[in-house]
């Protein structure tokens, strides 16, 4: 059975997702205001420490996106359900956005603390490589028109790309690097952990909203394609 044949025509509903979107945006704004209000300047970095609350949550949630890509790519290879392919693709797009944002925020933080915008060290280079791999994944999806082949190749590329994430995460321990070790509640002053966790949850809500709505758009588009194909073969179709 091909992926197209296994697909059931069902138009996704927006439901209460627009309300959740507003909630996520307001929650993020509130989390950032809270972080500014309650966390004191760092002894060495001063207010530059505040970049922690955007850079680290973005990097963590990028990892969640790539984990979803791996899980749903495996599911697609196993069950050949188009919906798994579309969820993986949606997570990959949002992950690439967060990956690019992590890199840019890191550069903005690096300039005043390290004195340079960029260093070719293990953490930065591996993060850049992962960004390029997933940019390639999105390009692959854009260029391959046949849906079954696109889904199959994307699943393989998505799994290969997601394998990079543990390397990125552990790079600061495996190699000598200018980047500090992973910022986790255990490596951070307790004064900053609450705000960091709050902002991580806020970015997680944004991520959930982005992936769900991107999936909704992709699935609606796929249903439209199937309705058009069915109409071309000559029969009315309930969608």
């Amino acid at each position, binding site marked *: 059975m091909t992926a197209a044949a296994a697909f059931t025509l069902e*138009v996704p509903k*927006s439901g209460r997702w627009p309300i959740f*979107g507003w909630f996520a*945006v307001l929650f*993020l704004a509130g989390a*950032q205001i809270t972080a500014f209000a309650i966390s004191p300047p760092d002894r060495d*970095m*001063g*207010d*530059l420490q*505040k*970049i922690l609350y*955007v*850079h680290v949550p*973005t990097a963590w949630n990028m990892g969640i996106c790539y984990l979803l890509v791996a899980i749903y790519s495996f599911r697609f290879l196993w069950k050949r359900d188009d919906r798994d392919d579309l969820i993986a693709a949606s997570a990959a797009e*949002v992950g690439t*956005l967060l990956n*690019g*944002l992590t890199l*840019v*925020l890191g550069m*903005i*933080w690096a*300039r*005043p603390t390290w004195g340079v915008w960029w260093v070719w060290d293990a953490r930065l280079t591996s993060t850049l490589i992962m960004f390029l791999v997933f940019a390639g994944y999105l390009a692959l999806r854009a260029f391959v028109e046949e849906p079954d082949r696109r889904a199959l190749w994307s699943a393989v590329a998505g799994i290969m790309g997601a394998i990079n994430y543990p390397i990125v995460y552990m790079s600061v321990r495996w190699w000598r690097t200018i980047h500090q070790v992973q910022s986790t509640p255990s490596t951070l002053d307790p004064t900053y952990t609450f705000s960091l966790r709050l902002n991580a949850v806020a970015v997680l809500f*944004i991520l959930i909203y*982005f992936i769900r*709505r*991107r999936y*909704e*758009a*992709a699935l*609606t*588009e796929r*249903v*439209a*394609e199937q*309705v*058009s194909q*069915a*109409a071309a073969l000559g*029969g*009315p*179709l*309930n*969608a």
Partner: protein
Amino acid sequence: MPEMIASNGYYVAAAYAVGWLCILGYLLRLHSLLRRSREALAHAKTIGGAP
């Protein structure tokens, strides 16, 4: 010292501005994608005669 703190403020402001620009930019892209996909579905239904 005050100059350094002031210049650091620009970096913090730049980081948050970039973050929000990304989020708002992607929200606009999502809005556009959703609108286009619904239009495509409505068009396909018109051709196919689906209710």
